[in-house]
């Protein structure tokens, strides 16, 4: 366990070291004329624009967090703790939601609420004779809300795990003691769930910090920069070489932010033992009846899916049939065809699909193996400085994926080439994806492990079980539902990862998402939508399989 933890965190340290090294370089890495200076720090820290971008990002991330939790927490509570009908459907739709590319969601909102071409704006202007569009999505608040809706499935799965693990006996005890329902929620439920929720909140907020698609499509054109779009702007100049040094320096700022968030997380985690509710003394889950609230609850969940999922999917379908995006009209209908589907490069799709399939199986398996090891070392051992492992595992989340890729590219080209020639192979992607997903994996395994009291392992040890035996016969079975959740979600996150492969993909190892990203970058939204729909279609049998297996295991139709 300790060996695996050192291996995983060591990989993070190496990649971050490369980023740090880059921040002191002037010129193109690999060039003999490369020099070192503090120029990037001077230019970044003395530039007022940097602080404006960071402030924008804080606002965006805040709006994202609030929106995703306002939506995800009630849905997770309904699914996990009440007799809400159709739970498997909610789970399945949440999973499908993660497969819809963010760019499609962003574009969907452009075509609904853009001042010039938005259907809703145009309709309202025609109806009421308005001279200006009443809505505009190109502001930080709206962008954050849209990103929040995007991240709701992620927040849902993270909070659902926490809610599932909580013993309702505590709430029942509060009720028996005369507490009103809201008092029980405030004093018992929320406090018991706090570490898990905080972990999820920190995670979602950090993803908001690094989110790219929505700010790029809705904000960049209007000169509203967030951290990710600013990094992208600096890293992909059409004129001249990329400014790796500046990007690395910006990433160093993010490492600082991540360190702060990680410290907050650790503080919350120290309270964990108080909240361990899966103990050796019995665990009796019970569901709250919704009664007359069943209708409003159904309406709330349905509205979320229609607005946040169905509309973008319809948008994706519409865009896939057109040569370029058009609002529905007779002229647009005349140009509808299947050309975008027919013209997709089949051989490349097959290659990319195969690579993606390999990634979707190997990455979650490696990530979760390493995550369990890290969580166990952090939460179950008394090794000095164990908190530092957790701190390191959190960092990949905050560093822009594209910067991680640059670091991996340089390492594979100039350091590993002689003993591990992985440049241009699928293995460089496996390593970078697994390292980048460690923050997600460890948040999930931490949350799950927090809920399992030590006394179960202690009992096993008293009965003579070794550490491996405790792990195999006690922890893993108890962690199985959470691990299964995490596995499928890491697989799905791997499937839709857009920016990690940008720098390290070549024609041999490119994953499907990069193919779609290529279409998006070229504004070939029709081809991008067609490819995304095709892959969504190919993923449906996988989802069905997941649904059947998970249902049999009692994972997606809880109680």
């Amino acid at each position, binding site marked *: 366990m300790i060996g695996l933890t050192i291996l995983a965190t060591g990989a993070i340290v190496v990649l971050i070291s490369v980023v740090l090294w880059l921040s002191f370089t002037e010129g*193109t*890495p*690999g*060039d*003999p004329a490369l020099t070192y200076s503090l120029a990037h720090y001077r230019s970044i820290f003395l530039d007022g*624009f940097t602080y404006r971008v960071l402030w924008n990002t804080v606002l965006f991330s805040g709006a994202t967090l609030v929106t995703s939790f306002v939506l995800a927490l009630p849905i997770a509570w309904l699914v996990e703790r009440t007799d809400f009908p159709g739970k498997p459907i909610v789970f399945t739709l949440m999973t499908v939601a993660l497969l819809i590319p963010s760019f499609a969601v962003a574009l969907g909102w*452009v075509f609904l609420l*853009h001042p*010039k*071409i938005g259907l809703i704006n145009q309709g309202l202007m025609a109806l009421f004779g308005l001279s200006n569009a009443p809505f505009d999505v190109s502001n930080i608040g709206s962008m954050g809300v849209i990103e929040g809706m995007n991240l709701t499935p992620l927040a849902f799965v993270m909070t659902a795990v926490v809610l599932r693990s909580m013993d309702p006996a505590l709430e029942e005890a509060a009720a028996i003691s005369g507490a009103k329902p809201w008092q029980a929620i405030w004093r018992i439920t929320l406090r018991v769930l706090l570490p898990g929720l905080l972990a999820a909140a920190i995670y979602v907020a950090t993803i908001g910090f690094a989110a790219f698609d929505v700010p790029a499509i809705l904000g*960049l*054109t*209007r*000169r*509203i*920069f967030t951290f990710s779009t600013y990094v992208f*702007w600096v*890293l*992909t*100049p*059409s*004129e*001249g*070489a*990329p400014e790796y040094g500046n990007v690395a320096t910006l990433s160093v700022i993010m490492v600082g932010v991540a360190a702060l968030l990680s410290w907050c997380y650790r503080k919350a985690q120290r309270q964990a033992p108080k909240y361990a509710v899966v103990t050796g003394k019995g665990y009796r889950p019970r569901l709250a009846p919704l009664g007359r609230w069943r209708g409003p609850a159904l309406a709330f969940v349905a509205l979320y899916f229609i607005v946040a999922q169905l509309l973008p999917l319809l948008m994706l379908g519409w865009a896939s049939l057109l*040569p*370029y*995006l*058009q609002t529905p009209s007779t002229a647009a209908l005349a140009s509808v065809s299947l050309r975008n589907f027919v*013209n*997709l*490069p089949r051989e*490349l799709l097959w290659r990319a699909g195969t690579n993606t399939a390999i990634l979707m199986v190997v990455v979650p398996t490696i990530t979760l193996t390493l995550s369990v090891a890290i969580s166990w070392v952090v939460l179950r051992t008394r090794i000095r400085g164990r908190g530092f492992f957790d701190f390191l595992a959190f960092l990949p989340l905050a560093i822009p994926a594209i910067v991680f890729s640059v670091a991996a*590219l*340089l390492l594979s*080209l*100039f350091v590993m*080439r002689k003993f591990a020639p992985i*440049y*241009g192979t699928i293995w460089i992607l496996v390593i970078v994806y697994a390292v980048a997903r460690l923050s997600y994996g460890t948040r999930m395994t931490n949350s799950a492990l927090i809920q399992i009291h030590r006394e179960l392992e202690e009992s096993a040890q008293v009965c003579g079980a070794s550490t491996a035996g405790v792990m195999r016969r006690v922890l893993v079975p108890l962690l199985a539902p959470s691990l299964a959740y995490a596995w499928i979600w890491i697989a799905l996150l791997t499937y839709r990862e857009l920016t990690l492969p*940008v*720098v390290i*993909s*070549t*024609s041999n190892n*490119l994953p499907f998402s*990069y*193919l779609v*990203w*290529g*279409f998006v*970058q*070229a*504004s*070939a*939204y*029709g*081809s991008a939508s067609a490819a995304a729909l095709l892959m969504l279609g190919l993923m449906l049998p996988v989802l069905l399989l997941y649904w059947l297996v998970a249902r049999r295991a009692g994972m997606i139709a809880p109680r």
Partner: protein
Amino acid sequence: MTVRVAACALALATALTAGGEARAQSIATTPALAAAIAGAEQEGKLTVRWTNNIFGGPDGAKLAEAAINRIFGTHIAVEWAPGPAYGPMASQLYQELQAGEPATSDLYIATAVQISPYLDKGLFRTIDWVGLMPSRIAPAMVEADGRAIRIATNLPGIVYNIKVAPWVTEVSTTADLLKPEYKGKFYTTPFLGGFDVLLAPEVWGVEKTTDYVKKLTPQLAGLVGCEATTRIASGEIPALAIDCGGSVPNRLEYRGKGILGNQTLSDMAERRYNYLAILSHAPHPNAAILFVLYLMTAEGQEKMMWDIQGSDLDDFPQSHMREEYEKLEARGAKPVDVTIAWWRSHPGLDAANAELAKLVREK
């Protein structure tokens, strides 16, 4: 071998003369070309990486593969994969060279701006292009001692949606863009494409250009890349001033449909080129040569460059872009020729342009 060369010569003759009447030229399968054909056949494939909007991405690769094999009698596969933008692509290819890795793309497409910094670093092969196809390739088309060859001419201007932004036809100078009635109606690129030329001392110089960009910045609706063609076509972006090439409205998918237009500014006229270069560490250099040669045939210029890319090379007498260029000159414009030599004779333009880019990012 003799039969194959003869068949190849016949196919080449057809390709060289396609798309034009009375344009028959003397055909010669030179020893250099024969060697390149034999080499390409041995290599078996060509690997190319560029963005989707270059040569139609996968569609262009398929078209080129069929044409190359037909014209040169080869059996090579053209494998396209999406790649990053010009700047980051060059950087990655250079790092591969430094590390001793084979290039992940046999060819590199860019403009003088991206090619120039790598000329002295050994990134590109020197090729005797004229010797390979003397009937089509003139010395003027070859730059940097054979390390880059022109494949298309661009006349950057304002690319606009004809229905949503008909006012663009009234914009004929840079001063017009500063008029209050156009405030918030047009976008520009984040890197201020096209404005870099103004920084040259013999054009406007740094001071005047900076002053102009400061006035231009509050006029802008926002920033968008040159690849945003479909967003302009949809009306989301009414107009892009200045587009990288101004050629998109000429593409077959938009040509004559009344969707997109290009308006060049008379006091900011530029003639820029797209170049192809073969990487020093290219694993399939001969196949790459055949790709370039195909583009230089009349068929390649018509089908790949004009129909798909929207621009051909104005060095060819019957080219569409020569016609466009002559029209521009007739309007009294004096376009600046942004060749590799011109860019290299103006050191510091990219750094000055980066400072301008900082101005436009402010709202």
